């Protein structure tokens, strides 16, 4: 019972049998269907519409265009709202936009009696544009002649920031004889989350409220943003979040819920559904930012890292979404992972362009940062002729490190141990030797990468979470969390935590999986890798309060001192001896129906978390490279995670498998591509190359399980980290195999063949 057991998921049977209901399963009969009309240019203005043909389609109820929507710009990222205007998210889009900023921008919406009519009419909406040259790269967007994607940001730089570590600047730090330098550009491109369930919602008015049921990670934030976008009070909006088929950060953005609510208003409160296609999901929701890094590093021959410098340009796409937080996060990990003896300089730009808007995606800037950081680290180790593992062990952040700017530290530290464990598993020392000096067309190599990752978002952003526990007449518990189950297993680990704290066994705990903002306590939602940590704190606090209330009642009922009692396995027992005092079921019945003292025992608490801790880990990859075919086969892959105490080891392992698979796609095949007009080329799952089961090796997982003193149950981040280190480990393994350093992701056949040709291997 409790934390540390590999219990079955609480939703396993429901999900396997199909009993679990998702947004589309809950839709009532008779909903109208909405389809968004997307622009066919990437940059410009909508001058006018011709709706005559579209309106003539039988079944069309109404067409709303960007000329009609309220002038209320709103922000979309799933951040806690800031009460300080300077820290509020950028409000840079309307429900539909006349100023077209991406190819496929939302310019109109059709509401029809059925899907076919909506699709037909949407195809017949004719828009006339004033078109500007599309700005697809940060270089194009920062050029003096570039149009302003948002008129309030001439020059297109959404934000710029810089920081340094050390007493002296980089240039001065490297004025030392005998240093070895690496100076390279590393680049990542946009990829997409590809959650199984596409964004889908439906909205209707009832009892004076707009009710929106949606596939989201962040129901309470969706409610606030609908309020901002429609200009109606929060209390008039009710958001319901049932089971969802994955999010990975895309649904940590408020995507189409405000438009759905607005369209519902436009038809007098009738129910309207809005479900995206896969193509729209890839082209018109969010992607992971493409980041371009210029990195410089200097080290002594003995392997001492002396100084580094980072400049990063983040391609934001058309709207701010999560904005500069991504590039800033990327620079932070570059700083946090290694210690430079003398100096570190970082400078970050986030730039509006006309590509698909980039937002949150598993790892929030760190997969990109880890790629660049770990390419540089590898290239520096090669440059001074040192084993890359030894070089990392020498220079990585050590136990007790605290970020000098943010104050985040390793409150538990397993990074070095993770490296050693991974090296052991893959046979590092032997294979580094075995694979030296190969000459054939097919060559093997091993590579590695490490990372660190902050668990929550404190102190950059507010961390708050709430929980409610309600006693039933039979001594069982209703558990209500503001935090959301998005497939990651949150409901299961919360149930285990509740059992651990209250002494009520898991089979007597009924977690309410659906969040309903009219009922559910406030939590900002599933994002970062925060829920077991921050929401776990709320749960622990609530559980302790709940237990205390039960024991108070037990003390009254049994005429004993509450401090001598505790609850174990649904029994009130003597704390010292464990001797049974009262069955919880009996006690609960009494509490409900006592003619002397009737009370409904409930507890509710908010945890305002003001602490944060680093998780870390390592990935090791063994690859076989078929040079003439420009193909990489991953033979072995291991992730080792330092994530504190595991709440549910089996679920933790599954979490890592999923992340590693995502990392493999990032490493080798996934990439959003656009033509010169900014039109997406890979907006379908044929051309967007997610790896299939046939492309994945066995994924091996190890943990360094150290209790973190700041975690409510010794735990720290695990949700995002698995996806982080795989791509650079694969890149470094390819470097070992072939001697060719590929500095851009993914290592697709096209990119590899070019690199091999340049290196004279082809």
């Amino acid at each position, binding site marked *: 019972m409790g934390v540390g057991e590999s219990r079955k998921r609480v939703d396993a049977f429901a999900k396997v049998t199909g009993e679990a209901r998702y947004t589309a399963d809950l839709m009532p009969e008779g909903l109208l269907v909405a389809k968004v009309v997307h622009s066919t240019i990437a940059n410009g203005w909508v001058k006018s519409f011709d709706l005559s043909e579209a309106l003539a389609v039988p079944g069309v109820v109404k067409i709303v265009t960007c000329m009609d929507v309220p002038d209320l710009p709103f922000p979309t990222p799933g951040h806690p709202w800031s009460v300080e205007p300077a820290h509020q998210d950028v409000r840079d889009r309307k429900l539909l936009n006349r100023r077209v900023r991406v190819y496929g921008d939302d310019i109109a919406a059709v509401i029809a009696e059925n899907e*076919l009519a909506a699709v037909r009419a949407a195809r017949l909406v004719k828009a006339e544009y004033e078109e500007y040259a599309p700005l697809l790269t940060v270089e194009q967007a920062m050029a003096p002649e570039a149009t302003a994607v948002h008129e309030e940001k001439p020059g297109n730089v959404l934000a710029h920031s810089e920081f340094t570590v050390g007493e002296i600047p980089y240039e001065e730090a490297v004025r030392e004889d005998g240093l070895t330098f690496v100076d390279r550009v590393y680049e990542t491109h946009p990829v997409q989350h590809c959650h199984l369930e596409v964004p889908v919602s439906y909205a209707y008015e009832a009892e004076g409220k707009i009710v929106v049921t949606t596939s989201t990670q962040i129901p309470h934030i969706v409610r606030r943003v609908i309020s901002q976008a429609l200009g109606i009070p929060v209390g008039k909006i009710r958001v319901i979040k049932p089971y969802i088929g994955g999010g990975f950060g895309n649904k940590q953005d408020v995507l189409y819920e405000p438009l759905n609510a607005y369209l519902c208003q436009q038809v007098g409160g009738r129910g309207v559904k809005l479900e995206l296609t896969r193509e729209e999901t890839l082209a018109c929701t969010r992607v992971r930012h493409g980041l371009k890094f210029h990195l410089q590093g200097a080290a002594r021959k003995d392997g001492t890292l002396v100084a580094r410098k980072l400049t990063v340009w983040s391609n934001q796409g058309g709207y701010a979404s999560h904005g500069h937080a991504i590039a800033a996060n990327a620079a932070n990990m570059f700083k946090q992972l290694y210690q430079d003896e003398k100096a570190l300089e970082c400078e970050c730009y986030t730039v509006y362009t006309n590509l698909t808007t980039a937002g949150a995606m598993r790892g929030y800037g760190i997969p990109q940062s880890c790629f660049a950081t770990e390419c540089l680290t590898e290239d520096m180790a090669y440059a001074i002729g040192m084993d890359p593992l030894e070089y990392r062990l020498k220079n990585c952040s050590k136990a007790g490190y605290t970020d000098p700017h943010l104050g985040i530290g390793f409150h538990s530290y397993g990074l070095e141990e993770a490296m050693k464990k991974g090296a052991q598993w893959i046979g590092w020392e032997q294979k580094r030797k075995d694979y030296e000096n190969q000459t054939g067309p097919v060559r093997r190599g091993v590579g590695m990468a490490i990372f660190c990752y902050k668990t929550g978002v404190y102190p950059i952003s507010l961390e708050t979470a709430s929980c409610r526990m309600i006693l039933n007449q039979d001594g069982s518990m209703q558990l209500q969390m503001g935090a959301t189950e998005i497939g990651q297993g949150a409901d299961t680990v919360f149930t285990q935590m509740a059992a651990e704290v209250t002494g009520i066994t898991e089979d007597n705990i009924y977690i309410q999986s659906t969040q309903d903002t009219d009922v559910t306590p406030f939590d900002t939602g599933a994002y970062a890798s925060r829920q077991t940590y921050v929401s776990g704190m709320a749960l622990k606090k609530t559980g302790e309060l709940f237990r205390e209330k039960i024991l108070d009642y037990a003390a009254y009922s049994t005429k004993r001192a509450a401090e001598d009692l505790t609850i174990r396995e649904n029994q009130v027992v003597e704390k010292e001896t464990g001797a049974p005092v009262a069955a919880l079921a009996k006690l609960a019945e009494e509490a409900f129906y006592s003619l002397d003292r009737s009370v409904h025992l409930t507890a509710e608490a908010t945890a305002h978390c003001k602490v944060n801790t680093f998780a870390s880990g390592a990935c090791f990859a063994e690859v076989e490279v078929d040079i003439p*075919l420009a193909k990489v086969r991953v033979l072995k892959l291991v992730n080792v995670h330092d994530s504190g105490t595991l709440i549910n080891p089996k679920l933790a392992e599954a979490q890592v498998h999923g992340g590693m698979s995502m990392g493999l796609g990032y490493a080798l095949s996934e990439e959003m591509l656009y*033509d010169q007009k900014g039109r997406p080329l890979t907006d379908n799952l*044929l*051309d967007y190359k997610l790896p299939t*089961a*046939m*492309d994945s090796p066995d994924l091996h997982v190890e943990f360094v399980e150290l209790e973190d003193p700041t975690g409510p149950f010794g735990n720290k981040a695990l949700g995002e980290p698995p996806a982080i280190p795989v791509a650079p480990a694969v890149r470094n393994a390819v470097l070992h195999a072939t001697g060719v350093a590929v500095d851009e992701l993914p290592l697709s*056949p*096209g990119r590899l063949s070019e690199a091999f040709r340049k290196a004279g291997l082809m």
Partner: protein
Amino acid sequence: MYDISKCYQAKDAADAVRALMEDETAIVISGGTDVLIQVREGKLAGASLISVHGLPELTGIRMDEDGTLVIGAAETFSHITNHPLIQTYAPVLGEAVDTVGGPQIRNMGTIGGNVCNGVTSADSASTLMTFDAVLELFGPEGVRLVPVRDFYLSAKKTVRRQNEILLSVQIPKSEYEGYTGKYIKYGKRNAMEIATLGCAVRVKLSPDHTALEDLRIGFGVAGPVPMRCTETEAAAKGRKLDESLINEIGKGVLAEVHPRSSWRATKEFRLQLVEELVKRAFREAVEKGGGSFDA
């Protein structure tokens, strides 16, 4: 929901042709794995469909008295791969169609659709080219037989008329007996993929397995339509098996193919694959036939 104006299930082949003649805008649908995608994309939105799904004249895999292998046009890829006649007499065709998409697609998609779709990347097409397969078309004037090598006109265009349906794909005995073959599909991943390049090689070795009696090389995506490399084939015929022959074939085909650059792959990379894949497929086909290059 698909935007289809009509869908008529034909009762038999003659009924299908009659229906196609009645509605000149109608198109044939069988497994639907290509047509429905195009309907959904809008390219065939509002289409009028005539279904030949499950028609007896288009089903079944059999061997005629003269040894001709007859594959019904509406046979699915997975049936073809698993059929004993294919496994015995033309295993390479079964292997080739087993590379299409994923299991669900292979259970629905048909060889007739694959061929009639007219695309260069069809996984069955390059192999059928090496078999000199014959296509049995049925239209208002009855049956006509068209060699697959004359079937393709240009990208997505074939000699099949709007009111004709494909009944079967036929492989004469002389075309399969004594041959071994290998198809290599190159894609960016190992399933759910359309070929970046497809290469089929079939060989017939001398009785002592030391020389090449016949060679057939077929490519997909090496030009606008599936193609053969007849000059390289002719030059290699009768040659002794050795490493230099492999290299000559690799270089030889480069003069015959015409791949183009697209965002999916550059012409240079496709040429690299043409040379490399033909060498690998040739080596394997020979080894399957009991030959070797050790001498």
